[in-house]
């Protein structure tokens, strides 16, 4: 008997995966998943283009560092020669007009910016053109703030909610209920389809973003990174993305079965997980995001423009060990799927208007 | 007299498929008073597409469609000001009461506020939704929604009312009411009606002329009175009791008869024999005459002949009818 069930689960999954991947309505999920990869790729191209442009006008580092605050713009220009960019503009700051000037120099590795107010050097800032260390920090921030909370969250909401709730609203659920398939087998088949689709889209999206981050950096750093923690990072990022699909997928599948209005559960979970950092430790463990974040190799940098007062009470709980995180996630998923199977047995086809 | 609808080699394409392939005709030419035009055709023949092109929803590939002399594509406002449209599928606003819905539709058709309110109540009583007029449309049954759709099509008293499958899915009581309403629209209120339906029985009851489409072409345009030549010689009989040997008895009168089973007979009387002869024949053999009527070409036969599935309607042939038209014959002809 189980051989028939397995066969049916695979058939359902194949039918539904085709729909999940190719449906025009699902296009925005791809956008969400590939947005970071596109950005990092663009960033890579941008740095390469800048390196090519700027390397024609390299000024030695010692010379650049010899410039002091307060020097006149003309003197600096005389000493350092023609800057990469010389930009004059007027700025109005609390009532009075100021003439501003900004010059940029490049020493082969780092870019230096000099800000002149009324022709006197006011401040100096420098930034590495491309640094692996900085990029990995940005990636970790992007992954935990954008990818887990927004992309995977709303992507799974779209894909898994569509499996049952979408069919109810399209008035096509009866097609599945009239097939000689047990309801539980139908549920497993559809869940598998949603899982395969979301895991490939988001797992792939994470990997693409990871490689897009690395390709433009200087090969030596990248090689060292691969020898070092690189491979582990890639694995854990992808694993947490896929486990995110498993966790959120089961929750939204069950929500699609139990509730008429998908936005209510989504906004509740979103709210719960966005205030996660401020909750007492035990409460924090009650959310999927907590387990996913504890899988991520690098801690996420705290959002720089978060107001200081909030940052004080932010007390992120100590991340759970990886093994517990995965087990916790799978446990939550199994429980939610069991609830869903009870609900699908009682589900009736009643397309009355909302 | 300006015809209601005039098509001049109209061709319409939806997506990649050409639906209407060159239609030319003049419909609804009448001295005065309302004219009911039936639009018939098998599924996918382009009926709805033609109606939507008249409403200006699709731009014609070539050729023109004129309503009361106005071009449907170039002068949509003039055309739409003169017509009321009852769409085929469910089409309503759930959270509005019937009165509010009709008032809005009336005002959108150019009626001043006061008149729209009066007409809304008047029309709702007319279509039989009098006591449900303050309820929200979302709570209406299928039949009541069809009536509400009809009400919004006639509230502003248009010159042409286009009805797309008005009786589809209605139970007999509601269907009867809908047909009487359509008849009243044409007869008492002098509004022209374009009725598109696949229920031939309904078209037969209400329409003066019929346009039959097939695969986007006009295959038949007929004035129903002429087509339906009532052939006095063609009789339908239903007998109770033992009917063996009745065929032979008919032969003696020179009439040809075909037994259709369960006592149902089709008989063609020769010119000189009166209907009374049949009674005497039945009485002599102690047969009960359950049904005796003159048989007319139903619109179904006209339709089947027009779309080419039977050679001729029974009433057509002056010679005795070929094998009578029965579902089996149609099926073999088709497969």
């Amino acid at each position, binding site marked *: 008997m189980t051989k028939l069930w397995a066969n049916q689960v695979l058939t359902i999954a194949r039918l539904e995966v085709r729909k999940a991947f190719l449906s025009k309505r699902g296009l925005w999920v791809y956008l969400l998943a590939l947005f970071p990869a596109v950005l990092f790729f663009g960033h890579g191209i941008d740095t390469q283009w800048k390196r090519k442009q700027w390397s024609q006008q390299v000024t030695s580092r010692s010379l650049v560092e010899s410039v002091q605050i307060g020097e006149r713009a003309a003197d600096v220009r005389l000493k350092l020669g023609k800057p990469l960019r010389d930009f004059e503009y007027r700025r109005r*700051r609390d009532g009075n007009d100021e003439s501003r000037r900004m010059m940029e120099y490049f020493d082969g590795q780092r870019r230096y910016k000099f800000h002149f107010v009324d022709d006197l050097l006011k401040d100096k800032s420098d930034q590495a053109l491309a640094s692996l260390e900085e990029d990995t920090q940005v990636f970790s921030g992007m992954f935990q703030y954008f990818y887990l909370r927004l992309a995977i969250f709303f992507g799974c909401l779209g894909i898994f909610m569509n499996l049952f709730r979408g069919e109810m609203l399209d008035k096509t659920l009866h097609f599945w209920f009239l097939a000689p398939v047990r309801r539980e087998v139908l549920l497993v088949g559809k869940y598998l389809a949603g899982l395969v689709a979301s895991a490939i889209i988001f797992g792939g999206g994470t990997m693409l973003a990871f490689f897009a981050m690395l390709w433009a950096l200087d090969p030596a750093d990248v090689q060292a990174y691969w020898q070092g923690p690189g491979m582990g990072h890639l694995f854990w990022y992808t694993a947490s993305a896929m486990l995110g699909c498993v966790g959120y997928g089961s929750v939204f599948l069950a929500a699609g079965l139990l509730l008429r209005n998908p936005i209510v559960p989504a906004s509740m979970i979103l709210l719960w997980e966005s205030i996660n950092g401020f909750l007492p430790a035990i409460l924090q463990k009650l959310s999927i995001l907590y387990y996913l974040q504890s899988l991520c190799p690098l801690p996420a940098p705290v959002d720089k423009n978060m107001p200081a007062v909030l940052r004080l009470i932010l007390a992120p709980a100590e991340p759970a060990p990886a093994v517990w995180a995965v087990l916790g996630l799978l446990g939550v998923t199994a429980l939610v799927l069991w609830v869903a199977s009870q609900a699908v047995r009682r589900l009736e086809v009643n397309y009355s208007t909302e | 007299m300006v015809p209601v609808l005039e098509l001049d080699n109209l061709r319409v394409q939806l997506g990649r498929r050409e639906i209407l392939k060159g239609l030319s005709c003049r419909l609804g030419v009448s001295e005065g008073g309302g004219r009911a035009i039936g639009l018939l055709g098998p599924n996918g023949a382009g009926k709805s597409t033609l109606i939507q092109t008249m409403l200006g929803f699709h731009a014609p590939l070539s050729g023109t469609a004129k309503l009361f002399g106005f071009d449907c594509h170039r002068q949509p406002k003039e055309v739409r000001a003169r017509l009321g*449209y009852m769409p085929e599928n469910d089409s*309503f606003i759930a959270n509005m009461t019937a009165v509010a819905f009709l008032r809005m539709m009336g005002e*959108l*058709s150019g*009626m001043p506020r006061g008149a729209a309110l009066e007409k809304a109540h008047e029309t709702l009583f007319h279509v039989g939704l009098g006591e449900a007029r303050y309820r929200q449309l979302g709570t209406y049954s299928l039949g009541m929604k069809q009536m509400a759709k009809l009400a919004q099509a006639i509230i502003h*008293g248009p010159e042409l009312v286009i009805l797309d499958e008005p009786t589809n899915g209605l139970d007999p009581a509601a269907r009867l009411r809908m047909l009487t309403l359509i008849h009243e629209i044409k007869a008492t209120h002098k509004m022209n009606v374009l009725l598109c339906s696949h229920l031939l029985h309904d078209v037969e009851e209400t329409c003066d002329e019929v346009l039959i489409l097939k695969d986007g072409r006009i295959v038949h345009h007929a004035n129903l009175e002429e087509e339906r030549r009532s052939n006095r010689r063609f009789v339908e009989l239903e007998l109770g009791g033992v009917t063996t040997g009745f065929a032979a008895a008919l032969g003696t009168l020179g009439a040809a008869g075909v037994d259709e089973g369960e006592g149902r007979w089709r008989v063609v009387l020769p010119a000189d024999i009166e209907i009374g002869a049949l009674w005497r024949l039945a009485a002599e053999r102690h047969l009960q005459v359950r049904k005796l009527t003159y048989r007319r070409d139903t619109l179904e036969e006209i339709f089947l002949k027009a779309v080419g599935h039977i050679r001729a309607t029974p009433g057509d042939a002056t010679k005795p009818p070929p094998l009578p038209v029965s579902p089996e014959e149609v099926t073999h002809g088709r497969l």
Partner: protein
Amino acid sequence: MAVYKRGYQRYEGPRTGTWDRLMVLPRFSWGQLMSQRLVIAVLIGAAFWPLLCGIFIYIANHIELLAGFGQGFQKFLAVDGSFFKTFMIVQSTFAIGLAAMTGPGLIAPDLTNNALPLYFSRPMSRWEYVLARMIVLAGMLSAITWIPGLLIFGMQVGMAGGDWFSKYWNLGLAVFLGFAMLVILASLVALASSAWVKWRVVAGALVLGFFFVLAGAAQMMNSIFRDSAGSLLNPLYLLGRLWAAMMGIDSPDESEPGLWACASALIGFCALMIVVLERKLRPVEVVK
């Protein structure tokens, strides 16, 4: 005794002009919207902040009431560009909330039950339908944006007298034009999202998404590229920049995108919404 057969008579009377017909949909929609408790709640909620600002202006113009406070507090009381800008920013979040709540409710009922053919079989073009829906939303949003804005501006001019007016007359214009831009953008976004996604609730979420998720995405772009071109994706940022320019408040430092870039990005968003409306708002779904 005369028996009248008074049943349905065909209407032969005069027909109203285009403008009256255009105002039919707004009249009915306003009536319906005003009957929803939630809408009334938001409208009342949106009145508190202008009230507060009004009180602030009153105090600012009657310094003697605050004799006891020190000099520093005096400067804080200045009623100038930045005061009106903060007023507009807070009111715009209310406006967006109202647009997300009421906008989809306007078009969605017509789409779910396929009522569009009823509208377009009447002498009314698609753009008149969209304009009518826009008027409904613009009416609602103006009630909580530039109307209270001009009220408190008038109050300030009344109290502060002619010279304040000669110095800050452009603020009044900025309040009106700034809010007008917001109302048009919010209405277009609300109508386009409800035409794109047939379900009312998801369309509301899409409107909120448009304003806030885009802001998140823009901020992320900035952090990855380490410059600020990404802000062009953030509609509220663009509006803020245009408001600031109109009010003559200090412009940001040199790396922020230029004023013209912001304006053209906004126009780009509006154009995108109009394209969505043109493609999705069809009387009959033509399946290729």
